């Protein structure tokens, strides 16, 4: 255990916090210094993330690495336990990566009322929460980080947001708070009700996963899962808990929207994969058809919502509902295949929708409006931006060869043969609905593209001076665009990281006995506890 192994994750989480403290000490007037410090902080964080990526042992992605486990709150037996495995690694990388780009983008894009100091402090605190959530291996720690992101985002929307920002910010906050209150109840119930063999009551996610709900009667499992479900589903957001999302996105400043779409929504799906499924597998089996149902409803519903929008950002926001529907559909199949797809979908959606929000922000910046009826001819006035928009629309609609496809297709594929002895006809119906959803996705995205980019500019903007993509924008965007292509062509970049981890940590309890699994055999690291529980699960 060398220095790096034991400190890397802690640093990744808390360097932004240190940066935030430093920012507080810099006078508000020294904007350049503030920006530079922020950039340096996020870069340092990214540096450590990259270090983690490099030193990560890809041969055993299903094992937790860089693990640190210290006592934190003794009375409740809660630990400061951080670690990454193949499931969290991509998310952690995404989070620290996008944050850097957001800082770069916002360099001279600070929305009113300006005040970079406050804005960047919030951004850094947000990063603490995001990174922390993805590395936490203790339910309480997870909960804390999960909640930390609320306040900065609340202020970002509320202070730097659009005209209806107060409503949106409160709505965002209350929804999430409501979910997390129930989630906390469920965590506590897990603590008290699950008796991990040889350990007793614990908040440790790893141990709880190994126990896999041992000693819980089914109805209790269902209830606890219900609490977790609402908590995470609100964050995702799944239909019908999605209504905070369009408002929050529409009103949020660009960077806020980007982070919201790229990372914050992932906290919910990550929670499903990391917590809900492995810890309560039996309940997950009972819930999965309903989750699947809500997912496909979300896919269609989000698409229909998009078609009704007149505001570009709101449209993209609704598209998130649909896309996250695919992610959740993948999760609801309880198969390694589907959950891998979900993780891929999370990353892809993070990049693509994040990028779309960047563009929406720049469009707003240039035109002062996001009304689709007033826009047009972006390709004419700012061809590069127009093409990037087209590119992202294509990526978003799931064009093969770009990242979006690998989130959708395998998810849909896995619905053909769901795990955990779920009903095949039901999930195949979902498959068809989801496939129809892809057409609708193409419909609304291209419709948006047509409205915004094609045609000629409306008379009111005919003579407007429109900046094409600026240097800062290029710097922030190019990495995303490259990644979208790279992941599209080489999906294995992510799949190879997640595959074993998902198979061993999330999907293992759902391997079906009656149908042939997609995955023939996966070698998981042997743990006496795991073996014991697996035996128990399969013995049922």
């Amino acid at each position, binding site marked *: 255990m060398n220095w790096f192994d034991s400190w890397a994750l802690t640093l990744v989480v808390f360097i932004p916090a240190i940066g935030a403290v430093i920012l507080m000490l810099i006078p508000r007037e020294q904007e350049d210094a503030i920006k530079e410090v922020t950039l340096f902080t996020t870069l340092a964080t990214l540096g450590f993330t990259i270090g983690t990526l490099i030193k990560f042992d890809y041969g055993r992605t299903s094992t937790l690495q860089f693990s640190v486990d210290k006592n*934190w709150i003794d009375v409740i037996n809660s630990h400061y336990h951080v670690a990454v495995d193949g499931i969290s690694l991509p998310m952690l990388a995404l989070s620290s990566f996008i944050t850097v780009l957001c800082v770069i983008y916002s360099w001279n894009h600070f929305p009113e009322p300006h005040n970079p100091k406050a804005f960047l402090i919030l951004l850094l605190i947000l990063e603490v929460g995001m990174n922390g959530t993805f590395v936490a291996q203790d339910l309480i720690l997870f909960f804390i980080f999960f909640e930390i992101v609320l306040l900065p985002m609340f202020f970002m929307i509320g202070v730097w947001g659009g005209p209806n920002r107060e409503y949106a910010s409160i709505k965002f906050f209350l929804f999430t708070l409501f979910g997390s209150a129930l989630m906390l109840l469920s965590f506590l119930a897990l603590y008290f009700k699950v008796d991990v063999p040889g350990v007793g009551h614990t908040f440790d996610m790893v141990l709880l996963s190994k126990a896999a709900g041992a000693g819980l009667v089914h109805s209790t499992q269902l209830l606890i899962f219900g609490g977790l479900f609402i908590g995470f589903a609100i964050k995702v957001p799944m239909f019908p808990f999605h209504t905070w999302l369009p408002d929050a996105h529409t009103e949020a400043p660009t960077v806020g929207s980007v982070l919201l779409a790229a990372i914050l929504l992932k906290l919910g799906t990550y929670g499903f994969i990391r917590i809900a499924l492995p810890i309560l597998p039996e309940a997950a089996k009972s819930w999965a058809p309903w989750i699947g149902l809500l997912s496909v409803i979300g896919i269609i519903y989000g698409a229909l919502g998009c078609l009704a929008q007149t505001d570009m950002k709101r449209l993209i926001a609704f598209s998130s509902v649909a896309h996250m529907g695919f992610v959740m559909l993948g999760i609801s199949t309880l198969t390694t295949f589907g959950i891998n797809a979900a993780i891929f979908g999370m990353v892809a959606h993070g990049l693509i929708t994040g990028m779309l929000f960047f563009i929406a922000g720049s469009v707003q910046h240039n035109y002062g409006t996001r009304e689709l009826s007033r826009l047009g001819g972006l390709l004419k006035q700012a061809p590069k931006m127009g093409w990037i928009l087209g590119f992202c629309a294509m990526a978003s609609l799931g064009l093969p060869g770009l990242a979006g496809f690998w989130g959708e297709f395998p998810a849909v594929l896995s619905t053909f043969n769901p795990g955990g002895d779920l009903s095949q006809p039901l999930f195949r119906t979902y498959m068809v609905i989801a496939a129809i959803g892809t057409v609708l996705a193409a419909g609304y995205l291209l419709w948006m593209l047509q409205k915004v980019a094609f045609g000629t500019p409306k008379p009111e903007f005919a003579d407007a001076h429109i900046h094409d993509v600026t240097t800062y924008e290029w710097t922030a965007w190019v990495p995303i665009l490259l990644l979208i292509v790279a992941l599209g062509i080489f999906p294995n970049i992510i799949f190879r990281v997640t595959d074993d981890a998902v198979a061993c940590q999330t999907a293992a309890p759902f391997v079906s006995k009656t149908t042939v699994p997609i995955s023939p055999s996966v070698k998981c690291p042997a743990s006496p506890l795991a073996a014991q529980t697996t035996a128990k699960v399969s013995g049922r």
Partner: protein
Amino acid sequence: MLSAATVHIATPAFDWHAFAPDLVLVATMVVVLVADLLLPDRESWRTSSIAAVGLLGALVPIATLVHSGHDRNLFNGAYVVDHYALALKAFFIIATYITVLLSVDYIREGDYYKGEFYFLLLVSTFGMSIMASSRDLISLFVALETISIPTFVLATFRKHDRASNEAGVKYYLIGVLSSALMLYGMSLIYGVTGATKLSDIAAYMSQHGTVPLVAVAMFLSLVGFAFKVSAVPFHFWAPDTYEGAPTPVTAFLSVASKAGGFVALINIVYFGFFLPNGRAADSWWPVLWVLAALSMTLGNLVALRQTNIVRMLAYSSVAQGGFMLVPFAAAGIAGADGHPGKAAAAMSAVVIYLLIYGAMNLGAFAVVIAVARRTRSAEISSYDGLWEIAPGLAVVMGIFLASLAGVPFFAGWFAKFVMFRAIIDAGTGWAIALGIIAAVNSVIAFFYYARPIRAMIFHAPTTEDRTPIVIPQPLFAAIALTVSVVVVVGIYPQVFARVGELAF
């Protein structure tokens, strides 16, 4: 008739060490009074320093008592100095100390009796200190009155202000009515059990079980404390009194005095009515369940509609009181289920909640006082754009409100957490139901905690005056102290968790 002069009164063995904190407080009272007499009128605010020093001085024997480590049972267990009592004594003293810090400039700049103010504060604190150790109905009653009677006066301290008068009379009358009801209940308990010492009462009940009269008597004897913690429906005085009383007094009422009530509740419920065999719990947990649910819900709902921040905080404190009552119900449920261990854990949850609540609520009031120095108003609208004028105050206020709302990394989350933990631990359907009510309420609570935050940060200032708000040093110290507690405990809750754990 009373001529038996030869009666020999056995001098009880007196553990002076155990009483040292209380004695320091009494001594401070005396010094304050004398100093007030001696000091010229213009200098009499200096009594605050004496009070402050005395309060801090009282912490010294507490520290030595903690250090000495063993529990002290005096008078056959009627008066106990254990970790629980010491922790709460320390809490009361520190809370009062912060109240003194809040009061210094408020009292100095107003037309008040200065020495008397601090004297009365100290008397009340003394009552709390006694309360923490009392394990006897008579002591509890006396301590409760010692807490209350000075605060009746303090609430009325702005003598020429009609609102303050009204605050005083409402507080007084409801307080007296409640204590009469409580006394009636106590008299019945005494009548049935023949004892006033809580341990004897517990022993009697675990032998005989409860009869309807005892159930009603227990309930009646809770009324006085329910009034003190402003549990719905005994809360009516609170909003009016909080609004009318001088703000530092309000802070004191909402934290120290309320905590006194909770300590009394812990004493009577846990040491008196809580029985390991669970025979009595059945008859009182539903009461506390209902009180908790009502307090949370009603407090939150009404707080939604407040425009005055003090009044809002009053209702918030009603709701927070409801949250603090939740573990009582949990303890009762666990007790009735035959899990005394869970009940003890629930009680430690109350203690932890109290400590955290004290820090954040006092802090919030400190900011209210600081802002009111400038705006002379407690309307939420007067907070518009505070972020522009005084970003520091706005951030700090935001932290306190967020903490009250239970947002993590501010101490409030841990308070809520232990509360949820207690109720989930109890685990029955009723417990879960209460937990869900609490969860829903903790969300509703955010609605109104967010309103000042929105006003401060999202709204533009209404005044043109952008000069910075001057915060006097004591007030600054109070704010700094509370905010650091809120942040540190939020990140490392073990600090307070340990206290709560030690207490039970």
